[in-house]
């Protein structure tokens, strides 16, 4: 069954919200609102999460892992290097002194946390990505876009919903 992509542009956030709510309420064949619906917006709308339903975010797990790994790496790397740096004594301190190692562990804890968080962000947000062919530069300006994926024959129904809610323009593309 061939799928069809639709992008509707709204100038008004309230209209877009209403459109999404209606899409979620409707039962259209070949269209699952939790998967086939993407909202594109120029700013981050906290409301989007409300009407799209909460979706899990995994970035914080990357953060946790990254921070712990960075801390472990630092402590073992530094203590290991000190123990293998041919055992030189400095200033009457132990060969593996804790206070400086903790300082460095702390720094690398943060370093690991930040790096892996950003990595996690790229993985979780699916970046870098090719832009989908249905893209309007107006979305990055001031308009809301709703991208849906649906069966060929249901496209009309969706279009109807979009026009009902005063969509400014509807782009269409036949996908796989």
């Amino acid at each position: 069954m061939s799928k069809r992509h639709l992008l509707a542009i709204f100038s008004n956030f309230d209209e877009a919200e209403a459109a999404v709510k209606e899409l979620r309420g409707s039962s259209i064949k070949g269209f699952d609102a939790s998967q086939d619906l993407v909202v594109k917006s120029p700013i981050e709308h906290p409301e989007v999460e409300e009407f799209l339903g909460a979706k899990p975010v995994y970035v914080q797990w990357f953060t946790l892992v990254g921070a712990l790994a960075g801390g472990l790496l630092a402590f073992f790397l530094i203590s290991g290097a000190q123990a293998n740096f041919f055992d030189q004594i400095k200033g009457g301190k132990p060969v593996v002194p804790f206070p400086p190692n903790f300082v460095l562990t702390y720094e690398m804890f943060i370093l690991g946390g930040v790096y892996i968080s950003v990595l996690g962000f790229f993985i979780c947000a699916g970046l870098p990505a090719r832009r989908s062919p249905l893209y309007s530069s107006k979305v990055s300006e001031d308009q809301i876009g709703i991208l849906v994926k649906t069966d060929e024959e249901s496209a009309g129904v969706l279009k109807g919903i979009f026009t009902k809610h005063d969509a400014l323009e509807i782009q269409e593309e036949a996908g796989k």
Partner: protein
Amino acid sequence: MKDIREDIAWAKINKDVLKSLESPRKLYWAILTVAIAMVAVAVGCEVYQYNVGMGVANMDNPHVWGLYIATFIFWIGMSHSGTLLSAILHLMHADWRKPIYRFAEAMTTFSLMTAGLFVAVHLGRVWQIYYALPYPNERGVWPNFQSPLLWDAMAIFTYLSSSILFLYVGMIPDLAICRDNIHSGWRKKLYTLLSLGWEGTDRQWRNFRITYLTIACFLIPLAVSVHSIVSSDFASSQQPGWHITSFGPYFVAGALYSGCAAIITLFIILRYVFKFEEYMTLPILKKVVRLTFAIAMVWTYLNLIEYATVWYSHDEASKHVLIMKATGVYAPFWWMMNFCGSIVPLVMAFKRFQTNIPVMMVVSLLLNLGMWLERWMIVAPTFADGYYPWTWDHDQWPSFVQWGIVFGSFGWFTLLFMVFCKIFPSVSMYEVKEMVYHRSLANKKLEVTGMQESGKGAH
């Protein structure tokens, strides 16, 4: 007075900010030329110093550290304000930061890059600088992880790379805007590459928010640790005047202080150079000034505490250093520093000056002068009046090489900053839109409940 008009069209925000990326005005070229000339002075001095030896900087055997270390600390300190605005105020939901945090954060990055240069400039054998890097090598030796200098290196590396990532991640949506609006040349390719195909989908925004918040959470303790590690260069040594417990918070406060002062300076410059009057509004300046004033008072307190504890202690050597600071060869600079750091900011307490741009420009420059002198007054007097009497009768005055490199570093910073402002949007477009959006929502709510009081924003 509103800090931003809620009826600015979003398209206009794009247009205004993107305009700052278009072909530069004459003023821009003038600033750039001056900056390059300043860098050229520094490069010349460094080449001379590299070829002949550190002696030409006119340091001598007890006075082994001079302006390089002082200016290094100054630039590190300067970097902290970016984190203050972008991370701390972000967590505190102070959304007046939104129009100004981007350039503050760029300032963080570039002042760290400037500070990094001073590490190299300061070294006697800069060509062996890789000895200080921890990597497995054929000599089987590692750097000394006990050295505060190595902590510095680590802290600065972490801070610099994290700041760049933070700056970059926060800029992705704006880069997408640039990509959509600039249609030719290498810039188009650059923006396409850097925006990573950002489309503003709900999935992207969702992860973006969490990531941005997470990095902000990491950056705050990081910024505090960076400057307290820099302070441990001194605090963990044994010299009178350096070995002071309160140096950690004192340095952090000083860092935020000089950073905020620099933000005011750059705020005013950008406001005029790029005509950002709509976004960098006077009420925002007022908030920054008030923040700076508060930090100035914290710094003044910590400064006095430092003097007081030294004075109150039985440590004769430290006391001697303090007395010599006030009466010895460095006395004019020391008094100047106290004047610029503690008296000048009192101007900021007056409402009528808080939004007076010429006054604020002068005050912010004086504050920065004071903060630079502060760093010099931490580093140098200890060498002149330390424990050992043999060092007391040496005098030392930085040569033109040291002054030239310090002078050039300001040019280097300006150069980086100006280039950044022409390539990347120095005002966060999407966040200004958010700010405008929230303001209009709040207004709407007020209208609905009929409690509208004229002239009051959401904050």
